[in-house]
């Protein structure tokens, strides 16, 4: 206890104060009480005192407060200070009781630290911790809980859990399970997944474990629940399931099966689609890899299958093979197999992972497309022959006329008793003319015959010279001249000669039509071969009407035609023929008027 | 004589015809197809002709005793006679009437035979308008330029 006067001077310094501060009473009496305080309290004290003296307002009187005091040796200690005014004292005197609270402080601190640590544990826990009282009010919730629910702690403590955080539809069930827990009917550590309602209105799926909490008397007063947010995990699981079923559907749609086989006799897995493709009941399980070739691979493809498989295992590590499977019911499927070979981690077995793709339908479509294309090409060939029919009829009619005339002349000469030598001459001519007509017909038949495409090594110059027999009559009946300008030493090309003739006839036909459209144009069509650095080029040059720029871009479109009788297929098919030969078909203006159509063909290596 | 001179023809409007008064303007059309008769007669009327149509050669030949047309337009294949036979029957009556034969799917030989027998033209249907104008207008005493 310390008593001070109105100036702050110490008047009384008790024995306990002597012990507390380390001063003897006679040493301190009369000194200002502020010596017992460290700065800044010391200066503040003076101002408090002065303020009290002028205003009568006491800052600290009657209020116990924690202060820091300073011993004689300068050490500081926490103290609780209670100040009172000595009743009736004039001038005023104040009495202060000072308690050293160092020990209490330490205990408090320890407790606080303990609590903080517990809170830290609660907060560090990656699960939601939630305590509910018997009424279902939230008595505790940790940071994770707040985070999941999207509230701050004060927003939750004391609120009804079910009202605040449980979706409407699950509230009744929630309360019932709380009642059951409080009645001791629930499994002490029951597990349940329930939805919670967040502040944003989302539903999160929480996996709860619930433990009843009892007071010191053993009465159940609430529950402690730990909850784990499994929303993402469940979603991932669902997605995985979904993608697995998607994969299954995808395999079914693509008719693609996947498998993993461990050889020589490890586990094998076939996807459902593999069973479907090979026509085996999934209940029977996979066939051992060693038996697959024998059981399923088409006899004609088996040797190659085994050879390729061995090569994949021993050399390349990869299999990429098309072959035929024969199902138990005898039907044949075309499949494409891709596989990767890997040695297992223990080096004991070989793991073959692969796909089997059923390409039967594609094969059929390819085949139909190819046949359709061939039919179309053939129709176009017939069509162009139709367009050239006048010229060709003339070309056959001329030798027929000569034959008839020679024959009739010979008859007359014979009747008139002419020399055999004279008649023989007529007969020789008849033979030559019959052969001439026959040659036209032979070419014509070769040209219009419906045949599969085939590639031969072709001498383009010769092909063009042969073609002249078919193309020239058409020019002639239209009063035009067909001229050839063939480069020397044109390399051999790999081509289907009939298809190339078809392209050429098309181009000559078009050139004739273009020339007809320009009545004053030179009536001359030139077919020229040129040898470029990378390709042989064939040009068909006309001096006709030229290509209208407005239609140039449609020129190669199927069914585009400017001719009354045209099918519009000629150029489209010509282009696809040349493309199939890895060449290019195009056109450019002829210098001085008209159009030059050209196509290129790559020469045979070493040709 | 050009085969197909460029004519300025306005078929639907009757030409201002100044045919000499009293000049014969009768043109007979012999064709089994009433539609062809109608079409040809309309055209000839527009050219200023007086026309009569007959479905058969006999009907037409029967009228020759009473009146002789300045021109005959006849199908090359009539139900009773061929156009060529009609031509010959007219000749047999000592008459030389300019005759135009009309034909579908004609053979060259038929056309040439008709021409040799004296037909002045042999026209493939349906391209008959211009040829009719070419031949009939001068016969009616019309200059091409009038039409």
């Amino acid at each position, binding site marked *: 206890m310390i008593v001070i006067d109105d100036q702050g001077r110490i008047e009384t310094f008790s024995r306990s104060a002597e012990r507390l501060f380390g001063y003897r009473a006679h040493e301190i009496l009369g000194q200002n009480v502020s010596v017992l305080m460290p700065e800044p309290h010391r200066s503040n004290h003076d101002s408090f005192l002065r303020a009290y003296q002028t205003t009568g307002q006491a800052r600290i009187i009657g209020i116990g407060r924690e202060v820091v005091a300073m011993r004689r040796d300068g050490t500081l200690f926490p103290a609780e200070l209670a100040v009172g005014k000595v009743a009736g004292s004039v001038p005023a005197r104040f009495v202060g009781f000072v308690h050293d609270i160092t020990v209490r402080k330490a205990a408090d601190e320890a407790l606080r630290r303990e609590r903080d640590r517990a809170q830290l544990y609660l907060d560090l826990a990656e699960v939601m911790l939630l305590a509910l009282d018997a009424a279902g009010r939230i008595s505790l919730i940790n940071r994770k809980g707040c985070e999941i629910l999207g509230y701050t702690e004060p927003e939750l403590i004391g609120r009804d859990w079910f009202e605040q955080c449980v979706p409407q539809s699950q509230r009744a069930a929630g309360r019932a399970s709380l009642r059951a827990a409080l009645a001791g009917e629930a499994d002490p550590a029951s597990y349940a997944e329930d939805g919670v309602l967040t502040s944003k209105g989302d539903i999160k799926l929480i996996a709860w474990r619930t433990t009843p909490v009892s007071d010191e008397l053993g009465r159940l007063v609430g529950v402690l629940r730990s909850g784990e947010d499994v929303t993402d995990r469940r979603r991932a699981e669902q997605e995985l399931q979904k993608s697995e079923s998607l994969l299954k559907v995808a395999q079914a749609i693509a008719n693609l099966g996947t498998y993993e086989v461990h050889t020589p006799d490890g586990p094998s897995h076939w996807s459902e689609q593999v069973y479907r493709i090979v026509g085996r009941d999934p209940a029977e399980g996979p066939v051992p890899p060693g038996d697959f070739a024998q059981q399923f691979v088409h006899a004609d493809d088996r040797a190659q299958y085994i050879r390729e498989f061995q090569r994949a295992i021993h050399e390349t590590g990869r299999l990429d093979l098309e072959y035929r499977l024969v199902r138990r019911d005898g039907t044949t499927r075309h499949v494409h197999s891709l596989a990767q070979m890997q040695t297992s981690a223990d080096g004991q077995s070989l793991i073959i992972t692969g796909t089997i793709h059923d390409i039967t339908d594609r094969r059929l479509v390819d085949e139909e497309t190819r046949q359709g294309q061939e039919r179309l090409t053939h129709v176009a060939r017939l069509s162009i022959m139709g367009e050239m029919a*006048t010229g060709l*009829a*003339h070309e056959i*009619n*001329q*030798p*027929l*006329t*000569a*034959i*008839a*005339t*020679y024959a*009739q*002349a010979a008859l*007359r*000469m014979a009747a*008139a008793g*002419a020399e055999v030598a004279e008649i023989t001459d*007529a007969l020789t*001519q008849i033979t*030559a*003319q019959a052969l*001439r007509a026959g040659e036209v017909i032979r070419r014509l038949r070769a040209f219009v015959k419906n045949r599969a495409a085939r590639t031969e090594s072709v001498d383009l110059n010769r092909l063009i010279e042969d073609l002249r027999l078919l193309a020239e009559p058409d020019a*002639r*009946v239209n*009063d035009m*001249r067909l001229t050839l300008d063939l480069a020397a030493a044109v390399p051999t090309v790999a081509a289907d000669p009939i298809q190339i003739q078809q392209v050429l006839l098309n181009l000559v036909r078009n050139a004739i039509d273009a020339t007809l459209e320009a009545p004053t144009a030179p009536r001359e069509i030139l077919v020229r071969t040129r040898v470029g650095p990378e390709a042989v080029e064939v040009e068909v040059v006309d001096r006709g009407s030229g290509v209208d720029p407005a239609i140039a871009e449609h020129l190669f479109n199927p069914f585009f035609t400017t001719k009354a009788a045209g099918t519009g297929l000629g150029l489209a098919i010509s282009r696809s023929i040349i493309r199939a030969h890895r060449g290019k078909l195009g056109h450019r203006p002829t210098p001085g008027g008209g159009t030059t159509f050209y196509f290129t063909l790559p020469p045979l290596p070493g040709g | *004589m050009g*085969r197909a001179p460029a004519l300025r023809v306005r078929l639907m409007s009757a030409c201002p015809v100044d045919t000499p008064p009293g000049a014969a303007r009768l043109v007979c059309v012999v064709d089994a197809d009433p539609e062809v008769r109608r079409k040809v007669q309309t055209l000839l009327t527009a050219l200023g002709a007086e026309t009569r149509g007959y479905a058969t050669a006999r009907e037409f030949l029967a009228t020759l005793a009473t009146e002789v047309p300045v021109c005959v337009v006849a199908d090359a294949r009539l139900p009773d006679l061929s156009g060529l036979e009609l031509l010959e029957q007219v000749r047999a009556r000592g008459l030389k009437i300019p005759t135009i034969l009309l*034909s579908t799917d*004609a*053979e*060259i*030989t038929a*056309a*040439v035979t008709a*021409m*040799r027998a004296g037909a*002045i*033209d*042999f*026209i*493939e249907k349906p391209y008959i308008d211009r040829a009719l104008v070419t031949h009939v207008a001068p016969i009616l005493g019309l200059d091409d330029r009038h039409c």
Partner: protein
Amino acid sequence: MKEKPATVFVVDDDDAVRTSLRLLLKSVGLPVETFASAQEFLDAFDAERAGCLVLDIRMPGMSGLELQQRLNEIHAIIPIVFITGHGDVPMAVEAMQHGAVDFIQKPFRDQDLIDRINQALEKDRENRAGLKERDAIRRRMQQLTPREREVLNLVTQGKANKVIAGDLNVSQRTVEIHRARVMEKMGASSLAYLVRMVIEAERVS
């Protein structure tokens, strides 16, 4: 002037057809000359030479129909037999309208062609005979005096001497003398013959 015999001129661009025709026509004793193109024939054409033309329609350069047109333009009277491998009706009709003797399709029966050629040669003979007669008449007419021409015109119009005398304002006797001179110069044995000659002379070939 030594006249060549009537010749069959063959124009066809096809060697074999040309040669076979030559052989055929020679076998029936007809003189033949062949040409590979219309232009070649036209270059060698001599209007004075008797004969006929066997002509292919469709040829490179000048076509058969074009040659016919060119010959018509120069009033050539040579009869034409067309031969063609692929003619059509309008083409045939045009050829006939322009005076062709016939239009034959290849191949043909030799007799048909030979008949047509003979017809054509006959027509050529007639044409030439007619021409010759017309020339003779015209030459005679040129020997008439202007007055005699006047009398000829009026006589052939069917006018009587008395009327002519009135028209020309001369005596009837004078008309009779002129008329006798005309008949004598023209070589006419009767009035009807005189009229026919005048009509013939006025015909345009």
